[in-house]
């Protein structure tokens, strides 16, 4: 049918438009001299890794990547350990304060973190002196509320008999969570971990505020500082910037492409529909 064809063509054209900046990022990072003409986007030769060496001489790429990794790893660990416990308790246990906790969890999702940046900065940097430390970076993100929500919704869907049977056998709640619920929760864990990963890995404002020491900065912050301050002085600033952008984007994109089938409506849908 003509209209189906038209729709498919439009969809694929739109997809190429969405992807073009990614393609351009890679091509630009490999060109010695930037060529901004339309033909320059499709170079026939002369590609080089020189820009990667250039950005690495200005920004400690490996060190920044390690900082990004520690920041993200800390958040993932906190979310998986404490988030699963909280999600399980919210879904499967009955205790005082449950309703309040659930309501607060929902409220957190609509009060933007950025708007609390001043008091959190006052607390973390001024009260506790955690500037330029991994702990200071991790704390405000330590447990991802969206992930807690996904865990809760997942545990809620499991049949009650599973839990009552285990309880009749005399298993404690921790044991039930570990040997009954968690083995079933792998898809939810993966979805929540993916969603949690992109938060701190891509976050700019908070680590930018807490880290003044370049040796502590995650890649997003050191790259942004390079864009802002040093770009004017470099011979081919865009080549080097785009090389840094590729390094920053690659891990998140690779993880997403590898696990994209877990990033679907049905996996998240349970979390979204509530």
């Amino acid at each position, binding site marked *: 049918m003509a209209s189906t064809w038209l729709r498919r063509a439009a969809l694929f054209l739109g*997809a190429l438009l969405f*992807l073009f900046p*990614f393609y351009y990022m890679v091509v630009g990072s490999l060109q010695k001299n930037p060529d901004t003409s339309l033909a320059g986007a499709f170079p026939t030769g002369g590609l080089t890794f020189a820009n990667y060496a250039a950005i690495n001489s200005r920004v400690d790429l490996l060190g920044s990547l390690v900082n990004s990794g520690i920041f993200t790893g800390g958040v993932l660990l906190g979310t998986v350990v404490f988030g699963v416990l909280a999600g399980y308790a919210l879904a499967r246990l009955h*205790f005082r304060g449950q309703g309040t906790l659930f309501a607060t969890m929902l409220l957190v999702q609509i009060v*933007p973190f950025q708007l609390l940046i*001043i008091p959190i900065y006052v607390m973390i940097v001024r009260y506790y002196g955690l500037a330029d430390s991994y702990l200071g970076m991790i704390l405000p993100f330590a447990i991802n509320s969206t992930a*807690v929500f996904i865990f809760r919704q997942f545990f809620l869907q499991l049949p009650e008999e599973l839990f009552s049977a285990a309880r009749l056998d005399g298993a404690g709640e921790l044991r039930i969570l570990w040997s009954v619920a968690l083995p079933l929760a792998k898809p939810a864990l993966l979805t929540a971990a993916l969603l949690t990963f992109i938060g701190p890995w891509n976050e700019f404002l908070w680590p930018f505020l807490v880290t003044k020491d370049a040796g502590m900065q995650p890649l997003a912050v050191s790259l942004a500082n390079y864009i802002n301050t040093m770009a004017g002085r470099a011979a081919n600033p865009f080549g080097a910037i785009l090389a840094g952008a590729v390094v920053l984007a690659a891990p*998140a994109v690779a993880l997403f492409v590898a696990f994209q089938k877990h990033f679907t409506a049905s996996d998240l849908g349970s979390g979204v529909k509530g």
Partner: protein
Amino acid sequence: MTSTTTPPRAEPAAPAPAPARSRSRLAALLGRQPVGILFAAPYAVFLAAIFAYPLVLAVWISFHDYFFAAPGAQVDRPFVGLENYRTVLSDPDVRQSFVNVAEFLVINVPLTVLLSLLLATALNKAIRGRTFLRVAYYVPYVTASVALVSVWLFLFGQAGMVNQVLGGLAPDPSWLVNSTLAMPVIAIFVTWKQMGFFVLLYLAALQNVPKELYESSQVDGAGRFASFRNVTVPGVRPATTLVVILATITGANLFTEPYLLTSGGGPDGSSASPVLVMYQKGIEQGNPDVAAAIGVLLVIGVLAISLVNRKLLEKD
């Protein structure tokens, strides 16, 4: 939303053995499974420390003459009433930033709702290459703003590819240094970056629209556009409320794009966002009290928009 709180088990009418009675009294106090309190405690402490307390602190700071002092120093921070709010509301930079974010929302929110619903409807059908399409439309969402801004700087710069292609039609001054175009470019950037997430929300919502409704609308002789308007749009209305609220929150959070893409909200503050002004006033210029007042106003604004949205979109 399924409620998980159930009332504690009713006390047995007949006198129960002593351990059972004390157990049910404990249950009345702590709930049926008190161990849940232990499980949830780390998260509850986290929410109290990183959400509830800062929220209160923000309001407190905004009503006091607050400044940064050396750790441990005893300083006097007198109550100043609405002084900080007066400062904020009479400050042209702050007013400009609120106008800017309104302009951002006017462009970004309708575009986001329309495009993500259309894309989700199209992607919901079984078509070849669906995995490729999904990846293509989601991938900007999972990528760091800082990385994407780098490419846009390159694309939309004075000598960038967009201007090269446009030739004589290129705007002067160029996109990012043009006070009329800077904010729209940021709004388009964010629409593109966030689209994948909203497509995902709509795809989830579309699973809940009963297939029979489409069939009966086809029986009634409705065309594709009519059934989109009469079945799809009303069917996903709760999701639309959510999308509008979340897109508004994203807009209220805007920082990285004006900071990097238009080098600090330029030209002349025409693309400055409230969070950027908060950063400049609070951290750079050392007036956390004024910045906290901006934050409180924004929270109120976001909550008000969310409530109005729910009322408007869920009225029938």
